[in-house]
């Protein structure tokens, strides 16, 4: 079973990379970009077939390693 993990900086934590991307988009002529936040996307293939258990495992992985919860939030999507 595939789980997809999205890791983003907590709101309020400055994101200099997001800011740089926003400036670059401005420079390319993309008007109306009000903000950019950069994060990480991680796909994990689990042997687990129970979606609830897969979610539980992925959330434990986030808390222990994948995210630094001092500065980051995470979201787990459980798929097929």
């Amino acid at each position, binding site marked *: 079973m595939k789980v997809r993990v999205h890791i983003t900086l907590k709101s309020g*934590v*400055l994101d*200099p*990379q997001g800011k*740089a991307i926003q400036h670059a988009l401005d420079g390319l002529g993309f008007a109306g970009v009000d903000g950019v936040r950069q994060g990480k996307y991680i796909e994990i293939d689990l042997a687990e077939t129970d979606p609830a258990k897969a979610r539980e495992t992925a959330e434990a992985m986030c808390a222990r*390693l994948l995210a*630094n919860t*001092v*500065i980051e939030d995470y979201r787990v999507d459980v798929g097929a």
Partner: protein
Amino acid sequence: MKSAVIVFPGSNCDRDVQVALRASLGAEPLMAWHGDAALPAVDLIVVPGGFSYGDYLRAGAMAAHSPVMREVALRAAAGVPVLGICNGFQVLCEAGLLPGALMRNAGLKFICRDVHLRVDNARTIFTSGYATGQVVRMPVAHADGNYNADAATLDALEGEGRVAFRYCAADGAVTEAANPNGSARNIAGILNAAGNVLGMMPHPERLAEAALGGTDGRAMFDSVCTALV
């Protein structure tokens, strides 16, 4: 006195620390490989700078979970002094031995130059060779040195005398212009609550003898060696 330097794949300041410890201690430090779950009894552990595990995921994140770090955490809890420099500071934060996190530099660039630091607290085993308020010069060399923690944590660090060093101007003024990486409240180094774990982004080992261009870092190693002998 016995000391150990932890060596990860990608450490690159381990030999510099080894030289500095040898000079201050007059004894050869043990170089401890990251995969070793067993660590001999030592009086001081240094987690050196570098790019452990290629900074994969986040700087220090992989190293924080290596076998040797479990042992370092146990020793730190037992009161053994642990000094983390640069990547070592990142590792100690990721391992939960120090609060907060080190993020990408506010200016996004890798910074490699000397900075001025104000010694905020000289009443620690690591900084007793300095005077509180003294301005020292040390090099920084990092891309992820932007110290971040929530306001309550920062207040606690300041209130409990756990800020060891702050980035400052040559005259000691703690200004935004003197902050190289965007660190909260110009923080360059912090202590744990017990005072036996110090993490700092600047490199004292890189200015620890005259041949390197300065000796301001030497007092750091002398302090901790004096405290432990």
